[in-house]
């Protein structure tokens, strides 16, 4: 479900820097469409990033996170062949998980 995320990760000085772009409308529920009807709220509520099985970032978001959200962080460790995965869940019950293998 949802469109693929763009996850980039680079190992640098014993740390791994992760950048994630997520395709999501992040509708606040306050916007009206061209016919004047309110567009229902539709936004990501939870995000979890893992290095292999270990959680390296968790987040709870509200609708004030921008459309097509971006998040960047760094964790200690990370070696070529390890995986970095990111999963999200939104207020309409949609979820998506993508992962990459560290180079």
């Amino acid at each position, binding site marked *: 479900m949802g469109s693929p995320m763009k996850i980039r990760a680079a190992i640098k000085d014993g740390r791994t820097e992760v950048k994630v772009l997520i395709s999501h409308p992040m509708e606040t529920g306050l916007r009206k469409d061209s016919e004047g009807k309110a567009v229902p709220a539709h936004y990501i509520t939870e995000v979890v990033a893992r290095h292999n099985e270990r959680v*390296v970032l968790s987040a*709870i978001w*509200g609708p*004030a996170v921008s459309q097509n959200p971006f998040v960047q962080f760094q964790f200690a460790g990370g070696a070529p062949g390890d995986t970095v995965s990111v999963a999200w869940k939104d207020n309409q019950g949609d979820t998506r998980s993508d992962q990459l293998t560290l180079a």
Partner: protein
Amino acid sequence: MKSDFDLSAWPPPSLFSRRHFLRLGARLAGALALLPWVPGAAWAAALEAVFKERTVADVLKGLGDDIQSSDQITIVTPEIAENGAVVPVTVKSALPSTTEIYLVVEKNPNPLAAAFIIPDQTEPSISARVKVAQSSNLIAVVKADGKLYSATRETKVTLGGCGG
């Protein structure tokens, strides 16, 4: 690919300060009774109430009673954002044992924008992008060693014209 959404590793043990949990928990005592006893889910549910608060004062109260301002927290945002729909922000904490970072936008309809849990191995520095409804203070609240600290930075936003 993982299909589950596992919050069981969330939050880290340092968050189980009894006082913190009780404060948040009490707000949703009724709702919590209906939830299974999953620590992460309970924490997320408690925070959900704070996301619905409409003033900064209520958001801060929801996060904890005693918040000290700290120069150990750095907020980076553009001097002026061309479009308030997307305002890049980086919050960096130099406080030891930072475990949580919150982004609060003073004049948004619901000021709490995002909450991040920082595990042990993760740098206490997060970049994200938030909506800023009008020029206003951006407040970063950081939990470090069980205590809450904050820093504030003003963010100006404009709306563009119809060209491009």
